[in-house]
Structures are given as C-alpha cells and as structure tokens.
C-alpha cells in the first residue's frame, strides 16, 4: 500500500511537472494575451526537432539553449508579421490563424524530418538511474525535467510579479491605445511575450523530445490537455497553472492505480443490468478513464468556479 502511494505520488509529481513544462508557455500567451494559441503544440514540436538536430551535431546542452532561441525568434516573427494584424479582428480570428499555422508547421516538419520518429536520445550525461525506490528506477533525466520546470516557474514568477510586463499586457487587452499613450510600447511587449511563450514551448520540446516520441505528429497528439491545465489553474495565474499541473498529474496517476469500477461499487445491482450498453458503463474502471478525468475536471470547475483554481478573472 505504502509502495503504491509513494510511487504514485512520485510519478504524479513528475508527470505534473512535465505538464507544467509544456503548459508554461501557453499560460503566458493564453492567460496574458488572451490568445488561444493552438500552435503552441507546434512550437513544442519545433523545439523537439530543433533540439534533436542540434544535439546530434553539437550536443544536447547547446540544443537546450539554441533551440528555444530559434523557436522564440520564429514566435516573434509570427507575432510581428501575422498575429499583430489579426489581433484587431478578435479572438476567433487569432485562434484560426494559429490553427492554420499548425498545418503549416506540421507539413514543414514532415518535409524536413520525414514522417517517421527520429532517434532523439537522452544525453549520456543524464542517462543513468538517479535513485531506486521499491526496485523502481527513477532516471536522472526525469529529475532534470522536474528541476527545469521548477526553475521556469520561479523565473516566470519573478518576471511577472517584479516587472510591469504582466500589467501592461493585461491592461492592453482592454485599452491597448491607452496603454501606448501612457508611454508603453505595447506592440513590442506583445511580440516579446509571444516570443517567450514560443521559446518556453520549445524548452519543453527539447526536454520532452527524448523522453517521449519525437515525430511529426507529436503536436497533434498532445491535444488540448494543455488548455485544460491553464484553464483549471485560472486564467492569468501562473501559480494556478503550476497547481493545476500537479493536480492533474496526481489525479491521473492515482486513477491509473485504481481498479475500481461501478460494478465493484454496486456489485449486486450490476448483475441485474442486462443491457450491454449499461454493462459498458458498469465495467469501466477508474484506471481506464484516467486520461479523460482532466476534461471532466475542466467542465466541473468551469461550471462551479469559472475563475479556475487561482484565476483573477473570468473572461
């Protein structure tokens, strides 16, 4: 029992931090700029492929620095020459713009790297088990993931609370012209924020690439789970996103560990239910539905607490 709880907690925390790593850039873009950036996963994929390409030439560590820089620049260019123009036409237009971008990025990645997975490996310097609990190894690379997530969280927290960038962006959502007339270069700040968001996605890509599968469909497979993290955490709240990542990580891990089903719960009743349709519902285990629990959580939280866990506003 202790073994299951301990291991599940550990796995949950590790998974949660991976989620946060992937979602941090989206939190920045979505909750600060209000842009539903569907291309976030594509930037993440670009990060992974750039990381792969750089790491096989000069090594993982230069890749960890260079890939996010490159993707950040791409993000800046996307904002400057595309999104900025679309911005005045509203959120739906922005969303579709990034939606179109996902197609383009995926196709370009396929042209350059093909459709098959690439052999993106954990750097040898981190390729060893860091510790072992109950005969289960925890690779050093996972710890590195965790530390990076924590570092990013701390750094973003400092930037958001210690500078006025967050305020400027938030103010510009309602009165962009006024913010400019107070002397703030709104355009440049938006560009920076978007660039940083893209770069953060790329950091996640560089790190998750070796841990997961680096393939041209990895963006599409990531799905909307990151939106779930940001929204559950609460729009505009970095700590919220952090908390939500942890929560989802833990909930999912513990759900997998459980084999309970309605049939177990209401055993005798279940026997009577003849319809095959009901039997389906009856016999589904918690573990089976683990990965869709976050969506359930999303719907429930939005219904009962639309601001999310720690959000300051409902939009």
């Amino acid at each position, binding site marked *: 029992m202790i073994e299951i709880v301990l291991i599940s907690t550990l796995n949950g925390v590790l998974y949660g931090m991976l989620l946060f790593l992937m979602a941090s850039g989206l939190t920045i873009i979505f909750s600060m700029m209000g842009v539903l950036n569907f291309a976030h996963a594509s930037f993440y994929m670009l990060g992974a492929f750039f990381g792969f390409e750089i790491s096989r030439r000069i090594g993982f560590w230069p890749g960890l620095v260079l890939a996010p820089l490159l993707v950040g620049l791409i993000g800046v260019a996307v904002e400057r020459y595309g999104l900025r123009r679309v911005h005045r036409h509203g959120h739906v237009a922005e969303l579709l713009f990034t939606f179109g971008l996902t197609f383009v990025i995926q196709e370009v990645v396929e042209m350059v790297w093909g459709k098959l997975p690439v052999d993106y490996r954990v750097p040898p310097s981190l390729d060893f088990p860091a510790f072992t609990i109950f005969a289960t190894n925890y690779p050093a690379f996972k710890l590195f993931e965790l530390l990076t997530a924590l570092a990013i969280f701390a750094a973003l927290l400092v930037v958001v609370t210690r500078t*006025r960038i967050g*305020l*400027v962006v*938030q*103010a510009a*959502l*309602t*009165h962009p*012209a*006024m*913010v*400019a*007339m*107070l*002397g*703030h*270069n*709104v355009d440049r700040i938006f560009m920076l924020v978007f660039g940083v968001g893209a770069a953060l996605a790329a950091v996640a890509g560089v790190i998750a690439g070796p841990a997961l599968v680096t393939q041209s469909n990895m963006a599409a497979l990531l799905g909307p789970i990151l939106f779930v993290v940001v929204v559950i955490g609460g729009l505009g709240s970095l700590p919220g996103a952090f908390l939500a990542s942890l929560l989802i990580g833990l909930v999912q891990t513990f759900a997998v560990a459980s084999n309970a089903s309605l049939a177990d719960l209401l055993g005798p009743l279940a026997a009577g239910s003849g319809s095959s349709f009901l039997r389906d519902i009856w016999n589904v285990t918690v573990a089976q539905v683990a990965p869709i629990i976050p969506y359930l959580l999303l719907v429930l939280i939005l219904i009962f607490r639309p601001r999310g866990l720690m959000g*300051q*506003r409902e939009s």
Partner: protein
Amino acid sequence: MLSVRDLHAYYGKSHILQGVNFHVGANEIVSILGRNGVGRSTTLKAIMGDPAPRGEIVFKGRPVAGLKPHEIARLGIGYVPEERAIFPALTVEQNLLLGLKPGQKASRWSVEETWRLFPQLRERANAPGGALSGGEQQMLTICRTLMGAPDLIMIDEPTEGLSPQMVERIGDLLQEIARRGISIVLVEQRLVIALRISHRVYVMGHGHIVFEGTPADLMANAEVRREWLEV
C-alpha cells in the same frame, strides 16, 4: 511648448480636422471649447498620433507628427482621454503604476501624492478599477497620467460626471498642476470652470479653430458664444 499648425486628421474617409492651428506656452492653461462633435477630442488624439495626423506638430522644438503614440508619450506629453480608459481588471494602484513610463522609477507625482489629493482613492487602492464610481474613475485617470511626469498634459472633459464640489476641486488641481510647471490643454464643456482657470481659450467649430483669445475676450464676444457655443 506645443505648437500645432494646419493639423488634419481623418477617420477612414471622413475629414474630421481640417486645418487646426493653436499653440501652448510653458506653464500655460489653454482651453479648447466647442460644441459636441466638432473635433476637440480628435485634436488631442491626433496629437497623440492616433488617428495619424497630417500637418505640423512641434513639441519642445521637436516635430512630433509621425511618431508612434508611445514615443510621443515618452517625449513628455500626457493625455487624459474622455472615455477615461481605466483598466477594469487591474486594481486602482496597478492602474496608477502603469502611468509610470518604462524605466521610470518615481516621479514628481507619486502614488502617495494621489492618495493625498483624493483620499477616496486610497480606500479603494486594491479594488478593481472597473468597480470605481464614475467620478472616482475620473480622478484616477488624471492621476494616472500625472504619474508619468509629463511636461504637457492634455485633458479631455475632466469634469464630466463630477459633482459640483468635485468640479471645483478639479479646477484647483489643474491650477496646481500648472503652478508646478506643467502646461495644460483642456477640452471642457463647462464654460464656467474653463473660463475661470484658463489663460487663453480657443473655440473650435467644424474641424478648425474659429476663435482665439483670453477668457475675457470670449466673454465680450457674444456672437462667437452664440454661434459656436450655443450659450
């Protein structure tokens, strides 16, 4: 301080400003009067760069036309819009802090100063700007612009929605601002207050200036008042 010559501005295809000329000296309070819709607000906005002005705008000896709004603001022109443009989701204090320009630490007008002038705002320091009463928003928007330590401040209808008593206070405040070395361009509906505190007044009609003079000149000119101010 500021001189505007042959200023034109358009909204889409409609030609709103059709050659506006005026100037403001150091420490001077200048009012622009006129009926609704003649383009007074547009004049101020065009000076701030949005809508894009055509013509000559010189501030502290530097041509300003063609610069972006934030560059103009950084040169030292402050603008208080008619619609107040309070950032509703930010707290009162955060609204004030946004008045500081990037890199600017403190200024002649600090948050403390605001609290002193309008103790009412201090009580609301942590309330969202959107929750403020109409009049409180008006106070906040003026103080927010002052935080940026402008050399010239352009204020659009500052007394709208203010109680008579508060109107007086604003009048005094404007005079104090001017005493501290800040020039003021005031767009005002209420003649009483404008005439009381202005050094000079312009009257605007249909996109250009139709009268220039001291308040006393205007009081003496019944015809202008009737035709262009409807009083």
